[in-house]
């Protein structure tokens, strides 16, 4: 019974495809899956924008949007109808292209943003047997297409021919390249321990229970540190506060999409949120056990419900952080990436190796934990040391 509910999407896909001739089935199956992703995640995006506005409102002791409901009735739905007028407003706005912009690149940038973001979804396991393309190198594929986002950001910044756009794009490139390294290095630990780049395999490795508690990687010392590093890097990768320097409103208007309006702006907005969901999904898959339940007595809840619940929880933390932390300065951003996250990620790789070779010995727990805590304390102390800035010397200008 529970198994049937768990597999309802997979079964209905098979049932739909079974009406077609044998040769068309793989294509039809992928097309239906693509349609599914294109329907579900933009819908999730629209709901999350409301959640974000309401959540930030509550954190600031306001109500947030609570008016728009069903038109011509008094039903308000607690404001959850707000995304519809917001979206309609966005779509009906005039599409302005600057006269001196590079028209083609300016047009292509939002499209180029959306394609890799949507491609990334193809390898994510949303539930048991619910991976669209179960590549052996799924993690590698995800990280590769995730890196392509930077191209679109720079296309947008460069083609707009606006100083704010270009500044935002340059900031974005510097930030994304810097944080891509701890992101990948923290993911590498999982690959080392599991021994596979296949995301389904990674989840299978975590889908075991000892004393009723799942073997999620986040419950191990290296996994916890890896998850925190991954989470911080994914904040930076999706340009969320406190790493929203590329689109810092108070400094550079809207950064690389200053010159975008109407539907293209909406596409950027959508691409950003879809990227956030995708990278959260990867974090869930790598460290939080993907679609598995945390405790063995909760395994009857369908796998996709677990995935969605974890995704929404992570998104809530994203929103919570956005409402709490102010924006970093550019040098703080770089210091944090290169002086703290990168060394800690490298140490974490070593710790994951120690963990792997100590086998099932209980001593691996204290050993790994102590190494990581010491590394964290030392690196944190070094990072927080008051910096001495001498007189600035100009080598060429004097």
């Amino acid at each position: 019974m529970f198994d049937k509910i768990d597999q309802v999407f997979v079964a209905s896909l098979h049932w739909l495809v079974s009406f077609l001739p044998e040769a068309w089935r793989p294509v039809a199956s992928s097309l239906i899956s693509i349609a599914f992703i294109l329907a579900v995640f933009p819908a999730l995006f629209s709901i999350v924008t409301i959640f974000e506005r309401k959540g930030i409102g509550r954190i600031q002791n306001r109500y947030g949007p609570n008016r728009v409901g069903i038109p011509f009735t008094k039903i308000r739905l607690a404001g959850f109808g707000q995304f519809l007028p917001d979206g309609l407003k966005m779509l009906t706005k005039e599409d302005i292209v600057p006269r001196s912009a590079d028209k083609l690149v300016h047009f292509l940038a939002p499209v180029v943003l959306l394609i890799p973001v949507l491609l990334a979804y193809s390898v994510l396991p949303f539930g048991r047997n619910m991976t669209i393309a179960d590549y052996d190198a799924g993690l590698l594929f995800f990280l590769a297409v995730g890196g392509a986002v930077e191209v679109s950001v720079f296309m947008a910044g460069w083609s707009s021919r606006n100083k704010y756009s270009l500044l935002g794009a340059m900031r974005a490139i510097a930030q994304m390249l810097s944080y891509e390294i701890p992101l990948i290095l923290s993911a590498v630990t999982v690959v080392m321990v599991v021994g596979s780049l296949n995301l389904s395999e990674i989840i299978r490795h975590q889908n075991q229970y000892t004393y009723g508690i799942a073997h999620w990687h986040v419950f191990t010392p290296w996994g916890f540190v890896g998850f925190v590093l991954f989470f911080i890097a994914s904040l930076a990768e999706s340009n969320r506060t406190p790493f929203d320097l590329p689109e810092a409103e108070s400094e550079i208007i809207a950064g690389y999409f200053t010159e975008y309006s109407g539907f293209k702006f909406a596409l950027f907005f959508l691409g950003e949120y879809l990227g956030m969901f995708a990278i959260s999904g990867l974090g869930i898959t790598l460290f939080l056990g993907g679609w598995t339940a945390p405790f063995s007595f909760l395994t009857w809840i369908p796998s996709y419900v677990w995935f969605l619940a974890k995704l929404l929880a992570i998104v809530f933390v994203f929103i919570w952080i956005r409402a709490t932390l102010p924006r970093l300065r550019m040098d703080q951003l770089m210091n944090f990436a290169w002086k703290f996250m990168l060394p800690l990620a490298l140490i974490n790789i070593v710790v994951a190796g120690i963990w792997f070779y100590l086998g099932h010995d209980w001593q691996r727990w204290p050993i790994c934990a102590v190494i990581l805590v010491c590394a964290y304390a030392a690196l944190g102390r070094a990072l927080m040391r008051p910096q001495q800035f001498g007189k600035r010397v100009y080598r060429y200008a004097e």
Partner: protein
Amino acid sequence: MLGEQIIKGMAVTARNFFGSYVSKDRLTTVQYPEERLPQKGNTRQFPMLVYDNDPEKGLRCVACTICEKECPPQCIYIVKSKDKKPDYKGQPQLYPAVFDIDISVCMSCSICVEVCPFESIKMNTEFELSTDDRFDDLLLHKSDLAKSNEYYRKLHPDDAKESDAVLAAEKAKAEAKAKAAADAKAKATIAASSTTATAPAPTPAVPPSTATK
């Protein structure tokens, strides 16, 4: 240690998040059309014309056009009447045939209130004036501007009391003067010193608005 303050900050925001669901006192906003905050005592939006008893005949304005001349953005337009009508003292006075205020121009400075010697033009607190016709609906005519003295008393009780006192004093003075004139006429043959004895006791208080001029 690194991250301590971040945890503290996150705790603060989390407390706000959950607290806003638990206690209504935390919420700083008011659900406006349904709930309203009381207006502050000195609220002012746009001018109105105060009348006693009748919106046409009781209008205090005598079309002296001082406000029209003093208005910095020149948003008042007055046409004087050809005939006269008795004011509250029974004295024949001109009245405004047309009195228009363009509230799209008005800057709510309340200089017109300060200069008005007849306690006629006062500031209204009505602020829900949004309209879809920005020309005709934002040009207030005499009939729109006329508001009763009771309304004014409700809006600004203290100011209204002062203005009532000024008017009462003026009226008492006028009555005393009339009475004195009548007495003088009656006792034309008797010594003229009697007029000083019936001189009005209350000297009119300077209206607070004119004092600041």
